[in-house]
């Protein structure tokens, strides 16, 4: 076996920071500070409101390692399987936080000022932009400790900048692969759009080996400039032994709109924190999530729709299908800050329970400090409607396929809101594959 990528030897996460990384010194300083912060913050417990119902026992990091090597065979297998959309504007593939393939964006987009490069290059070549936006918001939804860990250990990721008025029609695609027993990754996406820019990004999270335990701790910073349109899709398909945390912050400037969709297929435990900051008048944010939870999987979603400016809108739709002994948690707050008059904020969570042992926990919340606000929120759980099932039976469709159709149809409401047929059909395919497995 030949090694194509040499990293520092795999070492336990908790053994401390390696000093070999080739990153700018100012960034290394930040990482050292972040590591100290990580060490000083306590592990979450269920008594913390932000970790209520969470299986915090799974967050023991002792067995996980950073670094490691990738063989040529593994690299080939990963590239072979990095199949997402048919047509993309640009593409990056990371394995174990190493960039192993990059399809650059067109010269035309480059000429117009689009920057699509690895995080470590952006730190050097676009230090000002990078420093202004990189993890500029504190993690407030519970995972401050893990955000600090991420900052300390992040070694690569994607930087995408779309300048004034540039619209990238095709999606930009990013793969993150976990490889090896107890491996860990710290995926990062920093997406900055300027005024009236438009872009769609899809990130795929996958494991090379479907059995290997692993750990993923990612951060996304999405910045929608004035009037910009940003769509972000996350297709989480880690192996079923993986523990994953992802912290997403979206900042929506005036008249901008952001849409995000998180699909949860894989992992043992996956926590997704979504903070949507509506900081400019007329901004809009759509937060979508679709989860297919089976076996012992646990999906833990925490959201904040933070209305800072007046005339802002947010709309959250989370749909979970739960089978076997799977669990989902939704903790979501709509906060309308004192000056954010004329806000429209919606939050809807729907759980479809396919088994008596599945458990869906929902904790919606409202905090309204402004006037003239329209808010609705609600979370419901139900089972497959017997009459619907009979209708499909009466057409000759056997129970298993009928259930699958009803479940995919149930989830489709959120997927269709993306209004992007190519991405929708990719997500539908992932869902189908999970049912077929």
């Amino acid at each position, binding site marked *: 076996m030949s090694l194509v990528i040499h990293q520092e030897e795999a070492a336990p996460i908790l053994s401390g920071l390696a000093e070999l990384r080739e990153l700018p010194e100012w960034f290394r300083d930040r990482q050292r500070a972040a590591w100290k912060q990580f060490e000083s913050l306590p592990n979450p417990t269920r008594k913390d409101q932000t970790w209520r119902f969470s299986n915090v026992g799974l967050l023991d990091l002792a067995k996980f390692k950073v670094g490691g090597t990738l063989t040529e065979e593994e690299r080939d297998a990963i590239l072979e399987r990095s199949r997402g959309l048919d047509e993309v504007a640009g593409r990056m593939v990371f394995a174990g936080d190493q960039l192993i393939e990059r399809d650059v964006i067109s010269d035309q987009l480059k000429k117009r000022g689009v920057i699509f490069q690895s995080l470590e290059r952006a730190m050097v070549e676009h230090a000002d932009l990078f420093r202004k936006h990189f993890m500029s918001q504190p993690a407030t939804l519970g995972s401050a400790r893990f955000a600090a860990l991420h900052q300390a250990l992040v070694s690569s990721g994607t930087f995408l900048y779309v300048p004034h008025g540039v619209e990238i029609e095709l999606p930009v695609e990013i793969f993150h692969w976990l490889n090896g027993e107890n491996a860990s990754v710290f995926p990062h996406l920093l997406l900055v759009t300027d005024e009236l820019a438009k872009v769609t990004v899809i990130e795929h999270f996958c494991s090379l080996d479907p059995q290997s335990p692993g750990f993923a701790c990612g951060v996304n910073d999405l910045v929608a400039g004035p009037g910009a349109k940003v769509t972000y899709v996350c297709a989480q398909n880690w192996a079923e032994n993986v523990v994953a945390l992802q912290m997403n912050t979206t900042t929506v400037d005036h008249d901008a709109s952001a849409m995000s969709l998180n699909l949860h297929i894989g992992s043992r435990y996956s926590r997704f924190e979504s903070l949507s900051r509506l900081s400019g008048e007329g901004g809009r944010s759509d937060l979508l999530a679709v989860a297919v939870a089976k076996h012992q999987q646990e999906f833990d979603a925490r959201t904040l729709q933070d209305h800072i400016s007046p005339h802002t809108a947010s709309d959250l739709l989370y749909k979970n299908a739960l089978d076997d002994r799977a669990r989902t948690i939704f903790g979501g707050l709509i906060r309308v800050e004192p000056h954010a008059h004329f806000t429209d904020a919606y939050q809807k969570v729907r759980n479809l329970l396919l088994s008596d042992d599945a458990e869906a926990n929902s904790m919606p919340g409202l905090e309204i400090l402004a006037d003239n606000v329209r808010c609705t929120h609600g979370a419901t759980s139900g089972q497959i409607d017997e009459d619907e099932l009979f209708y499909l039976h*009466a*057409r*000759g469709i056997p129970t298993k396929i009928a259930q699958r159709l009803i479940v*995919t149809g149930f989830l489709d*409401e959120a997927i269709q809101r993306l209004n992007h047929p190519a991405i929708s059909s990719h997500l539908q395919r992932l869902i189908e594959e999970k049912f077929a497995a």
Partner: protein
Amino acid sequence: MKELNIENLRIAVDGQEIVRGLTLRVPRGEVHALMGPNGSGKSTLAKVLAGHPDYHVTAGKVLMDGENLLELEPDERARRGLFMAFQYPSEIPGVTIANFLRAAMQSRLPEGEELEATDYYAKLYEKIELLGMDRSFTSRAVNEGFSGGEKKRTEILQLAMLEPKYAVLDETDSGLDIDALKTVAHGVNSLRGPDLGILLITHYQRLLNYIIPDHVHVMVAGRIVRSGRKELALELEERGYDWARDGAIEPAFR
């Protein structure tokens, strides 16, 4: 033997008997109309034929081409050639008509055999046209937000696609405007033939002007009280159900 044979059927819901000794034979190739007042048990009969789990058959039997229908699961009955057009079709959110019918047709193929997509769509569009519907319908979720008339057309579209041996149409005419009624009747008539037996449940003589039945049965309080040729429907319209009930000496058939 090529018939749907219902013999002395009794059906109870929540301990109450709704169908009370019903006997009826629908041979393949014939159209039988079933008429009767509200609550007489017509839909209950239809649902039991299709295998709805809420209803209990307490006595009697149903044979489809000699095979005991009642011991088959609902999906198995459908695959063997029974179709029911629902009086109140369910909405299936997020499942398009195209995907739904595809799954239904796929389920009729032997294991390992894949439905041919081009043939499937060709057939689907042909039937869509037959029923005067727009192709865009096929990408809408089944019955979701459909008007009453659109739901009924969609039932007949499914009938046309699935080509059953026996079809029970439960008030497919109700809620249709006159043009839609003609289109649906045209659709049903074009499916008529020696291989299909139809049980047509309706309240209105009007439908029978367009789909001319071979036989008409009148059902009152869970039983067939009169049977006759198509003229019976006209007579019934003139004289009403009291006449039908009073005149009945014993549950008749044919």
